[in-house]
């Protein structure tokens, strides 16, 4: 457990009396893409929001060996732990460039760092460079997703939590976004990916957890999970034999 970049142990999250996440245990190793797949309402987004510090939770959680229970969202960001939420949470009335610059807010005093990050993001997402003066709210769905990921990358995080990056995107754009997610892993960013699109998620992930009604019901290497009959039956179009 101690070698993991992120470890959650017996994590519970509740909305009042309703428990949305029930005793989840997860381990994410450095340099890996770990995915949590499951149906709508399984508790995936709740788990991710709690891990990022946006929701109160109970249990044990560590990031790089440090206790997460007393870290605020902002403390996490300062330590390279970034969430790209399902709703993107962009600054719609601000230009793309300002959105990106604010992504490096925690390193704002290091101008060289910000410049280097900006160049790297523009190289990764050339469309953002073309649209840098455009207001974020005028971007297409795919561009918004790229901006949300690009903005999170501006602080050069070690761990990126991606919540449903394929949501609302056309299949070709989903493939493109996930290809870039794999590219990030290759550059050394560890990723916790939450997806409803199980097939796409298992294609890029190294390790996978299947979530159902607030609990992990299956886990294993992503390639094994892609061939698991129960996963195929429930999440990959029912190709059970």
């Amino acid at each position, binding site marked *: 457990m101690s070698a993991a970049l992120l470890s959650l142990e017996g994590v519970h999250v509740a909305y009042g009396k309703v428990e949305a996440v029930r005793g989840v245990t997860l381990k994410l190793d450095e340099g890996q893409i770990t995915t949590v797949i499951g149906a709508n309402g399984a508790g995936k987004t709740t788990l991710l*929001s709690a891990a*990022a510090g*946006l*929701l*109160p939770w109970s249990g044990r959680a560590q990031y790089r060996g440090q206790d997460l229970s*007393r870290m*605020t*969202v*902002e403390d996490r*960001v*300062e330590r390279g732990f*970034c*969430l*790209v*939420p399902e*709703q*993107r*949470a*962009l*600054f*719609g*009335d*601000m230009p793309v460039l*300002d959105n990106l*610059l*604010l*992504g490096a*807010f*925690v390193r*704002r005093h290091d101008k060289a760092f910000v410049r280097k990050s900006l160049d790297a993001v523009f190289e990764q997402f050339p469309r953002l460079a073309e649209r840098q003066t455009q207001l*974020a*709210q005028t971007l297409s769905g795919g561009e*918004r997703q790229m901006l949300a990921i690009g*903005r*999170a990358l501006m*602080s050069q995080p070690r761990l990126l939590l991606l919540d449903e990056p394929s949501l609302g995107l056309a299949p070709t754009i989903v493939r493109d976004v996930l290809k870039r997610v794999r590219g990030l892993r290759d550059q050394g960013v560890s990723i916790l990916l939450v997806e409803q699109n199980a097939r796409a998620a298992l294609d890029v992930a190294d390790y996978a957890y299947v979530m159902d009604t607030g609990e992990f019901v299956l886990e294993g290497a992503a390639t094994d999970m892609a061939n698991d009959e129960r996963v195929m039956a429930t999440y990959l179009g029912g190709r059970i034999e």
Partner: protein
Amino acid sequence: MSLDIVLILLIDGLSTGAIYLLAGLGFVLVFSVTRVIFIPSGDIAAFAALTLAAFQSRTVPGSIWLVAAMAVLACLAECVTLVRNGSARRLPHAIFFYAVLPLIPCIAGLAIAKQDVPEILRIAITMALILPMGVLIDRLTLRPLATSSTLILFIVAIAVHFLIAGIGLIVFGPEGVRTNPILDGVASLPGGVVVPAQQILMMIVALLLSLVFYLFFGRSITGKALRATASNRVGARLMGIRPERAAAAAYLIASGLAAIVGILIAPVTTMYYDSGFMIGLKASVGAIIGGMASYPITAIGSVFIGILESGASFVASDYKEIIIFSVVIPVLIWRSFAVHRDGDEEIEELA
């Protein structure tokens, strides 16, 4: 109505509008960052005027004791919170920010209160003394409720107004004051119209500060971080922008603007301990015209309210307030039709 009178009313309206503009910008800033309709900003303006008047009459202004007490209480509150959250390493920063910084102008104020010092020093110390008031009010009353509904925050803001005004009555007394003009003399316009230099100063300061505001929010990363918090609070937090620090910056700027309003208006209007409420209320009409969100429209709205007030004072003095506040109704109807909602703006705070 002759052209001379129109010109006089216009200049009077522009200088009044300049005051509403400064106060209105503070309203919009605080509301957009914190969702608080900061009614006490008018009281802060009145405190600035009364503090400067006290310095000019060689007495110790009661606001020194108020700010000092608030600083000690706010520092205690912050330290207790930090210790409870296991963030004791931030204690020195909290003590410096909430106690040391506000106490410096208190001590300076005590030192110069009975001395014969240059006017500019009195104004500077008044500014420095009043500047932390918004931040301290926030820390003591509003921050603990930061995640409450806008309605609760509004009710608390009204309660704080009555509290501050009540304290104002105790520490300053019921008498009205006028301060010495910052600029003496008059300027003559073509047609024989004479404008007091103080009114011209009010307009110039408003213009310059609007420019500073524009540059701050358009160019600086801190200004952009404040806009980001206003635009999407969750998104800002996910970038490491701490909402409590954004709020503190907003209150600091709003207090600064309120202090300037008080210092500028005191030579031309008699100020009482409770005069700030009406100034704030009229400035809020400008902010409402701007939808509590747009700085340029708030600026235009505030100047419009200033000119309207000036005209109404001349034509129908008794109905002046009725005319000004009646503007709110058509503006709200227009705003309710013009509401534009964007998907990304709808994200609510998750916790």
